[in-house]
């Protein structure tokens, strides 16, 4: 699946950021966004694999997809509230 299919509001390239930088970048984007907005976070940080889903579950947003890419992952997140 390509990211174009998600009609992204914003893509955040957090590759190269250390834990918990990618999560903090996502939280910042979600806070500034509107309900229904879809964000993509690119992260090579191993902590993101557990932290981003944990935060999304806690904050009650929606993890649309996680796409593994060579050396990083794309987290597709929808602001649900």
């Amino acid at each position, binding site marked *: 699946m390509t990211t174009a299919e998600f009609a992204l509001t914003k893509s955040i390239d957090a590759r*190269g*950021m*250390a*834990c*918990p*930088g990618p*999560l*903090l970048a996502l*939280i910042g984007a979600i806070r500034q966004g509107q309900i229904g907005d879809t964000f993509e976070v690119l992260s090579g940080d191993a902590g993101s694999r557990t*932290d981003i889903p*944990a*935060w999304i579950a*806690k*904050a*009650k947003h929606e993890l649309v997809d996680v796409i593994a890419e060579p050396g990083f992952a794309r987290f597709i997140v929808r602001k649900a509230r």
Partner: protein
Amino acid sequence: MIETEAPLSLILFSGTDDKLSAAAVLAVGAAAMGRPVNVFLQYYAVEAFRSDRIHADHGVALEASIAQAKQVAAYPGQHWSELLRQAKELGDVKIHACALSMEMFHLEKCDLDPIVDDVEGVAAFMTDASGPITFI
């Protein structure tokens, strides 16, 4: 907002950058997950929060080997003070300096970075820090 959870209470004693970074990561993670955070600065940690030297090189813990110290220095993460600033933006994060340590090092509230909310005594900290306390 995320519902309130059990607080994370940290006592920062060490003033080395590695320990302060580890503590800041814990604080920002807890704040992101909706947990209130109480930070109490004692001894060398208080000195590290001096506004005139918060960004100075505070070294690493004695247990770090020379090779590890180089790896810590080379790691691209954000400065611990910036992580704590973000933690305060994310949630209910209070940073207090121990009154006794302030007196010991002849410091006043105005000598500390504004990220420190206030100076307080240990009993006041214990009022906020219900539950387990982590000493770093």
